[in-house]
């Protein structure tokens, strides 16, 4: 029957449209459950595995655990890390290899985590900082060891 089909079509269309409007109306009146992340004001808690940049951990005595073995430099697939080593003179007159500067090119890094896995002493790790924007790319070349820092006792 043509007419009854026509009318039932209109009826069903109206019903489904009203259903949709009820849904949005519900959201409109319940705006406490906002899903917007208010990023700069409220920072999201990132998952533990999130990789933002490579950092070198320093303890409170400004000591790190990097022996300058260059395992990370070798592990890096795109030459992000460059380690310049030097030889410290120990009190007993022996020379000991140590890092002078740990250069890290953030702009080249793909956050692949291979350097961290390669490190035998767990000197470097991935930090969660992701706000890396700067005005010049030279600022992305970072020195990871803090000035005046030295290697921890007992790490070979």
């Amino acid at each position: 029957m043509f007419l009854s089909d026509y009318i039932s079509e209109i009826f069903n269309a109206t019903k489904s449209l009203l259903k949709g409007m009820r849904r949005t109306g519900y959201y409109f009146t319940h705006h406490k459950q906002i899903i917007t992340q208010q990023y700069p004001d409220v920072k999201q808690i990132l998952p533990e595995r999130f990789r933002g940049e490579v950092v070198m951990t320093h303890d409170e005595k400004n000591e790190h655990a990097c022996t300058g073995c260059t395992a990370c430099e070798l592990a890096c697939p795109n030459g992000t890390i460059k380690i310049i080593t030097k030889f410290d003179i120990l009190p007993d007159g022996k020379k000991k290899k140590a890092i002078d500067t740990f250069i890290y090119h953030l702009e080249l890094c793909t956050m692949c985590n291979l350097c961290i896995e390669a490190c035998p002493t767990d000197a470097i790790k991935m930090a969660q900082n992701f706000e890396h924007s700067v005005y010049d790319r030279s600022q992305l070349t970072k020195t990871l060891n803090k000035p005046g820092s030295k290697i921890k006792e007992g790490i070979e």
Partner: protein
Amino acid sequence: MLSLESITNSIHAWLNNTFNPTLALLLEFVIVGTCAIGLFTVLGLVLVLMERKVSAYMQIRLGPNRVGYGGSMQTLADTLKLAVKEGLTPDGADKFLFNLAPFIVIIISMLILAPIPFAKGFQIWDMNIGVLYVSAVSSVSVIGILMAGWASNNKYSLLGAMRSGAQIVSYELSAGLSILSIIVLTGSLKISDIIASQENGWWIFKGHIPAVIAFVIFIIAVTAETNRAPFDLAEAESELTAGFHTEYSGMKFALFFLAEYVNIFIACSLGAILFLGGWMPLHIGNWSGFNHIMDFIPSSIWFISKVFFLIFVIMWFRWTFPRLRVDQLLNLEWKYLLPISMFNLLLMTLVAIMGWHF
């Protein structure tokens, strides 16, 4: 009591006492023009902000909240940005028509403002044919859109303009028929008469089911006529980038944008006048106590709140429904809205003749 009517009357009297009639008339023209432009600006700012906030809340978002308190200055900042932007004209465009089109659109929406009563006795021109004038002049705005689309020398613009033309021309029919079904009841096209006839109740209540059907059809049709989602095929951003105003930038784009919102305001105020009694307070039959309380609310507040309620409904549509396809759009008009509204008009005539309305 201070009302808009008394203010305008005193201004009118003061001008006529101070200057000779011709000069007073000219001064009144200037005042009205300034008021209209001011209203346009305020409407643009308020409606765009309202749209963004409503859409945000409907999508469980926050919406603009950076500029000013709760984002209240956001649209002002946007306008400022648009005002200082360069208005580009594409190389292959028909420069004269390209630059003319936004002005045509905005002038048309300014012209339609003339018979809208914002409060009791607060109306620019209460002409004999008020409602017909609105629907006639608003049909010209499609020319501006077609002109913009063609003069841009861009296939997306042209497609958008053609869609818009087909859409506006077809939806004008059911809008006109639903307006007619109220005119059948009032027996006058004059807006003040239409409002006066609703003193003891609004037509949507007095006119039974036919009035409700006419109201629904009217709202659907004006949503389509103002090119708003779900009927925004003319500027469908996912298919046509921005349709007829793809090539416009800066202030010329702002004029199109403003005209869209002013058109919504005017369409909704027409709906409020015809179905919800314009500035008439809500009166229920013989409850004189209730009616008396309602009379205390100023007429301008009644009008504005009704209009904004309708605007909210239209925004509600926009943020709920997906966009129609072109064939679905034309099917909806020619196979559903038009036959229903014609039948509805007949029904309404029957109601009017038999005097079944209150």
